[in-house]
């Protein structure tokens, strides 16, 4: 037997799955840079406001529309709010909205996609439902939802949490359809592979076939959807703020800062540059992290 070389001494350590994933992730340069940038942004918005103690809502009317200076590194806006403090404070909300909305749309999309792909009986119903959601005009829908639920949620959870829940919910339920479609397609292709048949012949029940065989193999498209989803969520939140439907004006978010700044872009370009840079860097770093994770989780790519 030529293909069974048996080394008696094997002093290699047993490889652990997560050890392998980590070492592959580390060798992905883009992903490492992305992680550092993303962690830096997270730390900045998490502890930044404690270090840069200016109140983002304090209006210093004598220092309006200033450029960059030591007193106000990112400048000030037309009401004299300190831009650095606003960007730090806004990042908390933007990133929180981005991550939670992405999670919600991912969970919803994956769940519906897997069910539709795996169970033939549910396929028609679920995919026509998905088409229905895709066909809905988003903006009128948003207006209606916000008109209907804003005050109720505000009364229940307070102005900030209420609107946060509402926005996350809206972004979540209007962006899961692409994920669902991609996941369904992948599940359909995967379901015909022989290892699924092998699992059936062992007697593995459907729920474990899905968790053990289907889910790990559709990680790549899910990862890609997730990283793109964060970007979309942050940008959708910006457009909501722009329409005046997002957070109240005394809660700065990156999107709102950006849109407020666009009116005075000629006089104070820094007001657009900083929040824009923050959004771009976050989205870009998350994309790189997703790319690295996808590679690291695929054993066929790992080790190259």
């Amino acid at each position, binding site marked *: 037997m030529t293909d069974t070389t048996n080394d008696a001494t094997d002093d290699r350590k047993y490889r652990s799955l997560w050890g392998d994933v980590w070492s592959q992730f580390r060798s992905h340069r883009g992903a490492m840079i992305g992680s550092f940038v993303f962690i830096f942004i997270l730390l900045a918005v998490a502890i930044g406001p404690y270090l840069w103690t200016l109140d983002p809502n304090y209006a210093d009317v004598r220092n309006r529309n200033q450029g960059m200076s030591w007193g106000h590194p990112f400048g000030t806006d037309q009401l004299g709010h300190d831009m650095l403090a606003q960007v730090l404070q806004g990042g908390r909300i933007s990133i929180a909205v981005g991550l939670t909305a992405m999670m919600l749309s991912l969970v919803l999309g994956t769940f519906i996609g897997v069910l539709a792909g795996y169970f033939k009986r549910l396929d028609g119903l679920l995919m026509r439902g998905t088409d229905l959601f895709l066909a809905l005009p988003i903006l009128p829908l948003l207006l209606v939802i916000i008109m209907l639920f804003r005050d109720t949620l505000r009364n229940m959870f307070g102005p900030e949490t209420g609107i946060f829940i509402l926005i996350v919910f809206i972004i979540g339920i209007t962006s899961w359809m692409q994920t669902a479609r991609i996941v369904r397609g992948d599940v359909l292709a995967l379901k015909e592979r*022989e290892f699924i048949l*092998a699992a059936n*012949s*062992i*007697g*593995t029940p459907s729920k*474990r076939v899905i968790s053990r065989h289907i889910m790990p193999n559709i990680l790549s498209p899910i990862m890609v959807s997730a990283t793109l989803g964060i970007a979309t969520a942050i940008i959708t939140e910006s457009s909501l703020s722009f329409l005046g439907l997002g957070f109240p004006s005394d809660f700065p978010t990156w999107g709102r800062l950006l849109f407020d700044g666009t009116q005075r872009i000629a006089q104070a370009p820094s007001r657009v540059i900083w929040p824009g840079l923050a959004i771009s860097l976050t989205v870009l770093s998350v994309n790189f992290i997703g790319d690295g994770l996808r590679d690291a989780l695929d*054993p*066929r790519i790992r080790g190259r």
Partner: protein
Amino acid sequence: MLDEKKKPLVQVKNLKMHFPINRGILKRQVGAVKAVDGISFDVFEGETLGLVGESGCGKSTVGRCVLRLYEVTEGSIDIDGTDIATLSGAELRAKRPEMQMIFQDPQASLNPRMTVGSIISEPLDEHLNMSKAEKREKVGELMDAVGLARRFADRYPHEFSGGQRQRIGIARALALNPKFIVCDEPIAALDVSIQAQVVNLLEDLQEKLGLTYLFISHDLSMVRHLATRVAVMYLGRLVELGDSETLYMTPKHPYTQALLSAVPHPDPAQAGNIDRVILQGDVPSPANPPPGCTFSTRCPRAEAVCKQNSPEWREIGEGHFAACHFIE
């Protein structure tokens, strides 16, 4: 042969598997692909039943039906006294350990995201309550049994050669000590030198563990080497079944004769002297099989009666069955 002493482990009776064809806006059923159309056979304990036939004749479908990986249209499949064609979910699951399958494409039948160890221990996870250490030990034993080094347990399928992958598949099939294994063209995707290794491994395991195989293949020489009895299939039906030696030496059915005459001769000098039966035309569509004998469209001996009446499946010799009007 001690035929009287043998008892059938698997009894398939009048098995039919029709896949519906749905067309139109309303997806109404307009017909059916009769992949398997009423076949009956027994597999005796400890034997290897070879199932041969050309591509698309329904061999693999039979294999999958016998393990009830498809919901059969009609017929009964008795495995060790239980008719699995009608078992409910939980009962079927409890029966699964007794019957396992080895697949054709060792690349496709292993989940690329799982380590070899976890692939082999999947049946253990599903059916037995073992501690982690016990599982690890059992996986090690199985890997020894199929000739894989234990240290490979943490590797992934793509790091192995075709032959090694097939060994992984065999180890997985053996994990629950099955009695009956369906080998669905287990050597078709391997190159010749590896084929021999895998076939020898299957034979060794059969001897050691007393396994019963249903060996599906289109490699006639390999089936002759391995099988105790051989069944020949054409377009969803069995045309002949008999002892391996009898069937290969004196094939009765015209299709079997044609099939066997196509086996290449090892000696090129002799190869020219064989009487080849060359069949004309193509295999008819299983969605619309010809009336009467399904082989009548291509049979060199076909007469009017063949196009009208389906030949009976009858015993023509000691344990030798065939379906043809002209065999006495």
